[in-house]
């Protein structure tokens, strides 16, 4: 199980995450929602070790991850995809994934052989197929559609064979149809891989449809948590969302 206890982080005077305590059971699919600037991305940054909390703990099956480098946290099984797809523009999809597999297996510095390493290609193929990127294998990442760039970002996280997968707005910047396709892929991935998936999402229809449970952040605090039904009827959540209302991408 992944849990955070009393997690806090401020930037200068701005408290981005305040005293957050949450649990994410192993194998669960959870949505994290909240208005812009609520601290959602910061929350992922803290879990993945990109930034260090001022206070609190991040526990993965009892081990505190705070203070570990993000590389170490990756090796313990926490991987993430980014709000803005973080990819390698001059590499093709296949090259990106082959290079990622070799890096994950500790072959990043191999000089005596030619790229790609045959023993790494099976895994990168597998991930490509999983996300439906195989047709784009030889496309330069920079030339991929926006949606495929987001998929490639997720593919990079999957290469790491995570136990916990953090997806920061997988549907950001997509049209309605593309959005559902993406979320469908995420859902099937979760079903098949049996890993803990936490995703940030602004579209309430999507959240209520697929997330088994939901956590609401607002001004860095936990505003509510529970099932779709519980959140839908929660007056605090309604107030928070009526106040700011969803940004309509």
């Amino acid at each position, binding site marked *: 199980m992944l849990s955070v206890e009393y997690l806090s982080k401020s930037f200068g005077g701005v408290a981005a995450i305040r005293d957050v305590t949450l649990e994410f059971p192993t194998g669960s699919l959870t949505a994290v929602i909240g208005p812009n600037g609520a601290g959602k991305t910061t929350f992922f940054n803290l879990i993945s070790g990109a930034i260090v909390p001022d206070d609190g703990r991040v526990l993965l099956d009892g081990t505190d991850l705070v203070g570990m480098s993000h*590389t170490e946290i990756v090796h313990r099984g926490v991987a993430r995809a980014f709000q803005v797809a*973080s990819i*390698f523009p*001059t*590499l093709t999809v296949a090259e990106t994934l082959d*290079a990622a597999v070799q890096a994950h297996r500790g072959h990043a510095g191999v000089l005596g052989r030619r*790229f790609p390493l045959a023993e790494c290609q099976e895994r990168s193929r597998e991930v490509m197929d999983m996300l439906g990127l195989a047709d784009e294998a030889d496309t*330069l990442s920079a030339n991929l559609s926006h949606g495929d760039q987001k998929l490639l970002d997720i593919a*990079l996280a999957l290469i*790491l064979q995570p136990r916990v997968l953090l997806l920061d707005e997988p549907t950001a910047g997509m049209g309605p149809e593309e959005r559902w396709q993406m979320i469908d892929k995420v859902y099937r991935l979760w079903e098949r891989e049996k890993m803990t998936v936490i995703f940030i999402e602004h579209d309430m229809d999507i959240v209520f449809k697929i997330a088994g449970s939901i956590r609401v952040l607002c001004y860095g605090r936990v505003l509510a948590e529970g099932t779709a039904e519980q959140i839908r009827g929660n007056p605090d959540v309604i107030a928070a969302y009526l106040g700011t209302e969803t940004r309509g991408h």
Partner: protein
Amino acid sequence: MRRSAVRDLLIGAVVLAALVLLPVLWPSKALIDFVIRGAALALFATSLNLLVGYGGLVSFGHGMFFGVGAYSFGLLMQRTGMPIPVAFVVTIVVTAAVALLVGAICVRLKEIYFAFLTLAFQMFLHSLIILWVPLTGGDQGLLGGIPRPPFFGIDLGDQRQLYIAACVLLVAGLLLMRHIVESPFGFTLRMIRDNAARTGFLGVEIFRIKLVAFVLAGVFAGIGGVIMSLFVSGAYPEFAYWTMSGEGIFMIMLGGITTFLGPTIGTVILLLLNDFVTRFTEHHGLMLGAIILLFALGLRRGITDFLVDHWRRTRTPAATRRGH
């Protein structure tokens, strides 16, 4: 097939054969001199492009390793009487050690700081060469010629044989560097260039990869320096001056940084420009500057970048690959 090692070896063999035959078909001292200088500088430029083009590490001080190579080889030959192959190997070790030291301090730094710190180290080395007169001969350079005792029946004192040796070193060096950029390491380097933060998230130790790249590039620049010192039978402080690094940047900008052979082609262009322009005008710096401006503003990239781009665009409307 496109990344096949066998194909590269074949091309290397053909090019080497052609280079060796060239002076037989067209015996000219000027040609021989041109190719030897070209070999030294092409190795230097290509090694710089390992850093700039493949690693996104823009070094302003790469000339220092050309200088280290030339001086350590020259000094070893003058002072120890080692056989040439031994001095060659020792020079590689010395260059690698210097690159390791400088790299360990520099490669952690971000872009502009990296560029300027490498430049600072180069200035330091240049000053050291100027000031340490008893060892280096100061601004006179290593005088008195570099002894070139024959080994394995090879006499590098003979310009013809030196020509062949330079061609062999050029082709072997390019093949090795080609192998490096097509290795798993080479692709990790591209990942760091494209997106270092994400590369870190994949578990890569970025510092180590950059440092290894820096040392490898330093060694090949040093080999270029060795060829140059054999050619001029000496070593001069200019080899380690910042203008050397500047020329390296010119060569890769002229030839292109997205193709492996771009820097080699840039070297040939710069040497030709140098020779022709100096023949017709005294304002040779001015002319070179104008030509480089033309490239920068007209093509907005090196000649091979331009050609490859053009070729791809005419072949397929949506180019799927670019350069490396």
